[in-house]
């Protein structure tokens, strides 16, 4: 198998194995997690008999492997379930129903994904602008106080937890300066302008935290390129410092930036738990934490699979982009 098709196939098989093993791990981990799932689902004042009924309803009394097998079946063939008054079909790939809300996990994920995607992609744009800009500036001003100031500022962003940055930003920008309304999620499809304004602060909070990474990476990669022979060539042909930095040094930073960025985005698609919590964004991360707290296994497994899928996908995309950015790299 050679070429791009082979690459995609190999990655797909690898991803499948990774995700399957991941789901088994989650099943086992949550099997031994304390918390009487049926009692939690039923309510604390439920009688033992009621709890038993709920447990049966949710197949909690089945052996672990049987439950996992059931999960796999749903994934491949879909499953039917009862709402009490009617039978509904959850079509493949069916990740099951939430213990807590009886909703299809796939529907739940599809509802949360746009929020998380909005957050991740917007934040990415901002952190690339802030991070790469800072990095370039610090290379241009290397060895001078500006560079040190920039480095310190981005590190300050990196070392402050997002819940602190976000809250302080909100208090200052929305509460005191009244520059923006307090963020509340508006879907892009509903009102793109409001979508952007309301996500600005969450984006900024994430971007301030991540931009240090990109500033450092940009700076390191550019300095490395600047020390390379081909830069010497262009200097020896009279190319000025500005053009060297803009055309040659920055170009050398593109491939590593892609690699790191894709990875970050992959992780963010799994939900920026803290940011989503703080800003009340109904995204994947928050849903997942809520589900863990109430031992809502189908939701947790579904979300972890989606998260893992995005990490794997992002890494594969990163590899492709890396190869596009740097034609010397061969995809394996």
């Amino acid at each position, binding site marked *: 198998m050679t070429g791009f098709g082979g690459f995609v196939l190999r990655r797909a098989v*690898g991803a499948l194995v990774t995700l399957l093993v991941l789901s088994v791990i989650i099943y086992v981990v949550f099997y031994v997690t304390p918390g009487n799932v049926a009692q939690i689902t039923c309510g604390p004042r439920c009688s033992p008999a009621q709890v038993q009924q709920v447990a049966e309803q949710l197949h909690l009394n089945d052996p672990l492997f049987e439950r996992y097998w059931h999960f796999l079946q749903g994934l491949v063939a879909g499953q039917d379930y009862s709402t009490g008054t009617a039978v509904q079909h959850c079509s493949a790939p069916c990740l099951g129903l939430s213990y807590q809300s009886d909703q299809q996990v796939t529907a739940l994920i599809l509802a949360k994904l746009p929020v998380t995607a909005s957050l991740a992609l917007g934040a990415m744009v901002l952190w690339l602008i802030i991070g790469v800009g800072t990095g370039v500036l610090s290379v241009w001003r290397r060895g001078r106080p500006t560079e040190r100031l920039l480095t310190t500022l981005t590190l300050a962003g990196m070392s402050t937890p997002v819940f602190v940055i976000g809250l302080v930003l909100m208090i200052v920008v929305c509460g005191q300066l009244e520059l923006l309304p307090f963020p509340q999620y508006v879907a892009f499809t509903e009102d793109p302008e409001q979508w952007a304004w309301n996500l600005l602060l969450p984006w900024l909070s994430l971007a301030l935290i991540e931009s240090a990474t990109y500033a450092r990476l940009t700076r390191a990669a550019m300095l490395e390129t600047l020390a390379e022979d081909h830069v010497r060539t262009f200097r020896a042909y009279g190319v000025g410092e500005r053009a060297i930095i803009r055309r040659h040094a920055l170009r050398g930073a593109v491939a590593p930036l892609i690699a790191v960025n894709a990875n970050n985005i992959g992780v963010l698609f799994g939900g920026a738990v*803290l940011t989503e919590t703080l800003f009340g964004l109904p995204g994947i991360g928050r849903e997942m934490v809520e589900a863990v707290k109430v031992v809502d296994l189908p939701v947790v497994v579904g979300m972890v699979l989606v998260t893992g899928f995005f990490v794997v996908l992002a890494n594969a995309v990163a590899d492709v982009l890396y190869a596009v950015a740097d034609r*010397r790299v061969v995809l394996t």
Partner: protein
Amino acid sequence: MSEALVAVEAAGTDTSVPAASGARQFWRRLRTQRAALVAAVVVALLVLVALAAPLLTAIEGQDPTTYHPSLVDSARGGVPVGSFGGAGADHWLGVEPQTGRDLFARLVYGARVSLGVALAATVVQLVLGVVVGVAAGLGNRWVDLVLTRVADIFVAMPLMIVALALLAIVPAGFPRPVLVALVVGLVSGWGTLAKMVRAQTLTLKQLDYVAAARLSGWGTVRIARRELLPGLAAPVITFAAILVPTNITVEAALSFLGVGVKPPTPSWGQMLTSADVWYQAAPQYLLLPAGALFLTVLALTVLGDGVRTALDPRASSRLRVGTGRRREAS
């Protein structure tokens, strides 16, 4: 900070042509970097403060757990009485809102936990990452495939979720800081490190001195230990310097989600979590741990950069596709 950055940055440390080395050289090169030296002193001081926490609080005459109800204004939500959060001769940095516990004592004891957890987690990550990475790099095709896949799974695992679950499974009697360190170490960071170490191992394995060691008749384990590990030091140390501050912030995030180190044990992350709402009413409560965290991350990052420069002074290209012949060095 992102793990991937760590990987890319550390991978930038080119080991294909080993730098002239020796501990003396390393120190000499480190000494020439003033910023790194200052950072090293700061890190040393932080560690010292953490170790000497009981002594320092004894000098102050306070401890991190005693409540002082009289020092807070109960009617106003427990805001500290007096200016600057009740700072003075008795309580150097003031007291904590609601409880009136001494902030200086909590800060220095918090350093113990935060630094301790972060360092211990880093050790776990380094051991796992290096062992798995080297084994994958040296093993046959199947060993490599399985170990790489395992590392992939851990990279794809959402840290917070698994941490939440794992922290709930382990019995309450287990010492919490140790548990947090283990979970953070086990679930995050090492997968990326392992992949990087594997790549480095594959590169190092091609080096002539490793081939020479094989020709001497040594076995794989000995070669890994004597010839590969020293060569991995530079990228691994660089990785570690970035992992430590990452782990500190992860500890803070876990505290925020309510699964971090438990009160009354103070940690910076836990202080930050309780303090962020106090930003307006008692700013010093937030600023102290935030400042401490910032100082630590800054110092560790600068030190990490310094160590990396000292280990690998040639900022050579990681992407160089050399011809294999030496260049005239006149």
